[in-house]
């Protein structure tokens, strides 16, 4: 895999490889830009950007474009 199926960036990190009798049967990658992870044995509807449902692709990998689930709380003055 050369690029992330979701954001199309190329900053992929190899996370883990599954093996059977010593042979690699699949590899998990993690996109350091958008946080997506995937296994290279998954369906093309997941792995191929053009075949994915477009609403699940990301155009931006800037975290500030996404809302906080839980925004950080400021430190209180006496702590």
């Amino acid at each position: 895999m050369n690029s992330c199926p979701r954001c199309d960036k190329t900053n992929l990190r190899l996370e883990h490889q599954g093996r059977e009798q010593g042979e690699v049967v699949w590899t998990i990658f993690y996109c350091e830009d958008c946080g997506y992870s995937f296994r290279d044995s998954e369906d093309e509807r997941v792995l191929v950007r053009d075949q994915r449902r477009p609403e699940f692709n990301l155009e931006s990998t800037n975290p500030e474009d996404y809302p906080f689930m839980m925004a950080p709380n400021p430190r209180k003055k006496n702590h």
Partner: protein
Amino acid sequence: MNTISDANIEGVTSIGSLRDYLEFLQSHKQFITWPEAVMPEPDIRNVIAAGGRDFMTQPAILFDQIIGYPDKRLVAGVHGSFANIALLLGMPKQSSIKSMFYEMVSRWDSARADLRRVDPGAAPVHQNRIETDINLYDLLPLYRINEYDGGFYLGKANVVSRDPSDLDNFGKQNVGINRIQLHGKDTFTLLSPPVHDLGRQMRIADETGLPLKIAVMLGNHPAMALFAATPIGYDESEFEYASAMMGAPMTLTESGNGMDILADTEIVIEADYIPGEHKIEGPFGEFPGSYSGVRRAPVFKVTAISHRNDPIFENIYIGRGWTEHDTLIGLNTCTPIYAVLKKEFPEVEAVNAMYQHGLTGIVSVHQRYGGFAKTVAMRALSTPHGSMYLKNLIMVDADVDPFNLTEVMWALSVKTRSDDIIVVPNMTGIPVDPASIIPGKSHKLIIDATSHASPDPVGVDTAMVEPPTGPHIDALQTMVSQLQEAVQ
């Protein structure tokens, strides 16, 4: 110890672990081992979702031939049917949902906990300890739960945490179920809304700079997940509730980072909250049957892992309902709302809040006077769970069974007036409600489908038909069925 019910399935109170429960389920034909090799995707998702189509009787399913994960075991569907929940309550697996509701109600507040302790050195969970070269991918047979999830999720993690400003307070120690997305071999994001207990503890850690540690328990005594998902008070212990509601002892030990954990848990992941650090999280197919959006979520760093020999990873399928999420938390969503209402309004008969964790709820109540049901409805919307989750609330008379949707639809059809619908705008809601304009806020809808009562003048000349009921009619119904079966 178990003096709390007439539940009569033998052996349930001697269950001490997930393994015990799976054996127990097997003896009742509610547990199977999948016989074929499976790929993590899409096979595991497909098998669990297919089994879950019958949410009344689905068995728990163990996978032990997962390609690429030799020697790893995964179980799903442990709470995936009402048959499994009934057995956990010590009831026949054909029990009706309504009878299970009243069984849980009878145990609520009426039973005492029996918590025991063993030293960590003697606890099965600590049979194996990993403190260096941590690799969650190597330990857990992961699979993508829904096709467009943003990654690999732990969907049934029981997370233990202490109040950072009150570490010795056992009651404030929380056990909750939070969704966890892996972001590396030793890193994950965890979602907890600010109103949940863990969200509150994260806020305390942010504001004070005090460290927040957690222990993620995977593969537990089945009562743990049931009560980790139950909305109880901030200073009430889920461990105590689990023990009391089961009428059985539960054995605790200590995690390496100072949390109380179940001694027989399959896997415990210890982690530190990293204040101020967030990663892009989601989407994730959630219990409303929709994907949550992409968010920034708080980050946790794994510090150690303990696990039993040959551990069983317990996970879930969740999505458009009903799924294991609904059977797991349906009844214990109803019970605490009922318990609060019943204390203040003895006229409340039953609560059915099983629809998407209570997004829709039905309350039956003896109507004392015109408008009374609306008063009860307002209180339901201010219960700890109702304030956030209850969105559509249907009020019916006490003689309408809220667990019988045919009766509920009858009440809606004949009792409601379109000018008597209440919408309370801009209240607290859940962040994953797909109908919310602002995630976390929603309108509350109250439909009063109770009988009109004085001083309301409507309906005074349209008395309701009272169909024949009672033991004699029940016996006649049985006789009709027997005669029908005997037809050649």
